Structures are given as structure tokens and as C-alpha cells.
């Protein structure tokens, strides 16, 4: 791609959307929601730093982008989310 500074554009530019960057590949633990315990408070959705929780009445994890940071599990007031080791 770039060999010298002369090949670079003037300023750092990303010409693709961050959707192409599947942060799900970074995961070692994955959050799993126990829908029996979930009270649909959506606190997990608010805290997820990668917008990897989608609300479809109940919260759902988008594993393409969930990087497994565990913040949702930490914030859930009902302990409805557990972090499980990736297979």
C-alpha cells in the first residue's frame, strides 16, 4: 500500500465505514443474556461502548461487533448477563 510518506494522502482519512471493522473478532469472553432475569431496563444498551446491543423489545447482543469487554455484565442491575469463555 504505502511505501513512503509521499504515497500518503494529505491527512489521515478512512474511506470505509467502521462497519467493516468487525470488533467481534477481539472477543475472548462473550456476554450471554438470561432473559428470565432481564427486566428490560436497557442499562446494558446505554453502557455498551461499541453499540453492540440492539433493542428488540429485549436487548440482543450483536456478536459481529461485541468485543467482549464485559461492561454490560458489570452494569446489569439484575445480574442477567454472564461472561462465558468463547469456544
Amino acid at each position, binding site marked *: 500500500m504505502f511505501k513512503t510518506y509521499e504515497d500518503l494522502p494529505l*491527512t489521515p482519512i478512512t474511506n470505509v465505514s467502521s462497519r467493516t471493522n468487525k470488533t467481534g473478532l477481539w472477543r475472548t469472553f462473550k456476554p450471554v443474556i438470561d432473559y428470565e432475569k432481564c427486566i428490560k431496563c436497557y442499562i446494558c444498551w446505554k453502557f455498551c461502548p461499541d453499540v453492540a446491543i440492539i433493542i428488540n423489545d429485549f436487548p440482543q447482543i450483536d456478536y459481529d461487533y461485541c468485543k467482549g469487554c464485559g461492561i454490560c455484565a458489570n452494569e446489569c442491575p439484575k445480574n442477567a448477563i454472564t461472561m462465558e469463555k468463547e469456544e
Partner: protein
Amino acid sequence: MKKVVTGNEALAYGAKIARAEVIPAYPITPQTTVVEKIADFMADGEMKAKYIKVESEHSAMAACIAASNAGARTFTATSAHGLTLMHELLFWASGARLPIVMGNINRAMGPPWSVWADHLDSIAQRDTGWMQFYCENNQEVLDTVIQAYKICEDKDILLPAFINEDAFYLSHTSELVDIPDQERVDEFLPPYELQLKLDIDNPMGFGSLVMPEWYMEFRYKIAEAMDRSRKKIQQVSKEFNKMFGRSYEMLDLYRCEDAEAVFIAVGTMASTAKEVVDTMRKEGKDVGVARLRVFRPFPVDEIRELAKTVDFIGVMDRSYSFGYGGAIFSEIKAALYNSDYKPIVKDYIVGLGGKDVTPKVLEKIFTDGLKVRTKGLKDKEIEWIGVKGLGGW
């Protein structure tokens, strides 16, 4: 068309005839009448632009950055505390390679609170990657706005610039200014076209993270562009001269060819100094003035050339860097250190916070310089001029 206008009006006319399209503005004394005049132009239908009222100078520059990145020719103006509040975003504008042009009214930094002329506000932006022009009259203010867009928007440069005028000495002083015809300016200054820009149909991210492997490479590109701007400034000045009959040098030499002592002046002080040179020449005192019109990029070659023919350079700094001397003094010495010609260089700190730099004050400085030229510097490398209690002045 010749008109009697203030320096602030000259900035506004400059923005108008350069066809600036976006004006984000926040008022501050003594800049306010710049953006007021632009608002008048727009209200009267004489100028077509988007005027954005923002809540601070930080936001003003942020809006300039976004507008410029979207491909709009952008203008704003500020002063002192406003300029320094923009500091963070000034780096962004140059790093993002956006040709924003801004007027800065050189005003002192408080405390003590002061609204008067002083160059510390802009000198403190030295390392932000902006070109810096300093004007000696209102005609130059207007001409420099037009030239700056042409320099900044050149595809080999793509850097921002700000144009300085001394608070009150220019900002509120009315002088004769020849305002060029719109068609001629349009001929001189083509529309701004940006290749990579914010575009809804072609989304991109700007200002992304760069790993250590490539950071220096991007910064080097800026350094190269700033170096190239020296030639570009001269070339644009020549083209401007051909079209409008007024030319400007990076280092404007006045009666320096055969001078024994040359004094570096910046802004309006230089204009008064030229008058004093004429008076002293009549008395057989061979002094000259070199007006530093461009501080960034620094005219290193011109300074070295000047040093070949003089034994003494007196630098008149209208700002002070606490700890060691005025910035222009330091830069001039730095430029000369690796050259074969090293005249004595003395720093005169003068006119801070609007202390009037009268012909009398300048005559005393010039007389002192002639004396130092023959007797040597002794211990006074840096001298504050006109401070009550320091005596001698």
C-alpha cells in the same frame, strides 16, 4: 474604488471580495466590528455566505474546520484571549490541511487586562502550523486576505493562515484603501476546490488515528508544505502586483542596502520606523528598517542575506517570552547561528499592551543601536524600553 476604512472594515471587505462562504464568528474587542461589518454586508445582500453564531472561539474554529472540510471557503476573525482559546483547534486545522483564513487583531494577554496592541497572542501560536502575516496598513490587510486564500488553497500548500493587524493602530484607524473590483478578484482567485471532502454520498472519516509508524510521515508532509509556502507567497505576491499594482515581500527592506544598523520591526511599528529612518538619514545616520511581514514560514534566507551587509541588527519585539527574550529576537539569532555572517543582535522589548511606539521612542532605539554597533553589546542583550523606573529612556 478608494474608500476611507478601518483595518477591521478592510478585513471584512477582504472576506467579501474573496467570496468567503462560511463565517463562524464570536465577538471580542477589538475584533467585533469585523464580524459586524460582514453581518451588514450580508443583511444588505452584498455578500452571500452562511453566518454561524457560535458560543465561543473554540466553537468558531471548530465550525471553520467542518465548513472548510466540506469544501467551503471559510473566514473568521478573533483577538487575544479568543485566539488563545482556539489554540487546540488551530493544530487541528493545519493537521487536517484546511486552508482557513482568519483575521487576528493583535491584542495583549491579561492580566493585567488590556485591549491594546501587543503581539503575544499570535506569537504564542507559532507552532500550530498556521502561516502568519503581519500588516503595516489597512491596504495591506485587505490585499493579504485575498493573497492568503490563493496561497493557502494551492494544492501544494493546503495550510491555514492568519493575518494580523495591531489593535486600534489598524483595527480602529481609518485610512485610504483601494478596494479592488470584484471581477478582477474573481479573475485572480479561482473558487476553492477540495479533493477529499465531507460528502454525504461518499462517506469518509477524517483525522483518524495513526500508529507511530506513520505519524512522523504525516507531520513531515506539513513541514514540506510550509517550506514550499515561502516560494508560493512570493509567487502570489508577484501575480498580485501584476494585477493590482501592489507588491509585498516576506522581509520588507527599507533603506537597508547601505545601512550600518538595521532594525527589525513588525506591524504598524514598522510604518512609523520608516518615517524615522528618513529623518535620521537626513542627519547622516545610516539606519534602515526590515519589516518582518511573515513570521511563519520564517524568512530565513532573507535574514541571512541581510546579515551579510550589516554589523548590527536591533530587533523590536512587541511581545516577551518570560525566561528569555522576545521570540523574533530568538528566531533571528537562530537563523544566523549557522551562517557565516553574525552581526551583533540586540532585543528591544517595546510597545507591550499598547504603549505607544512614537517616532521619539524609535529614534532613541536607533541611536542606541548605532552606539552598540561601535561599542559592543556589553551586558545588555535584551532591554525593556520605556518601563517607568528603569531609567535611560
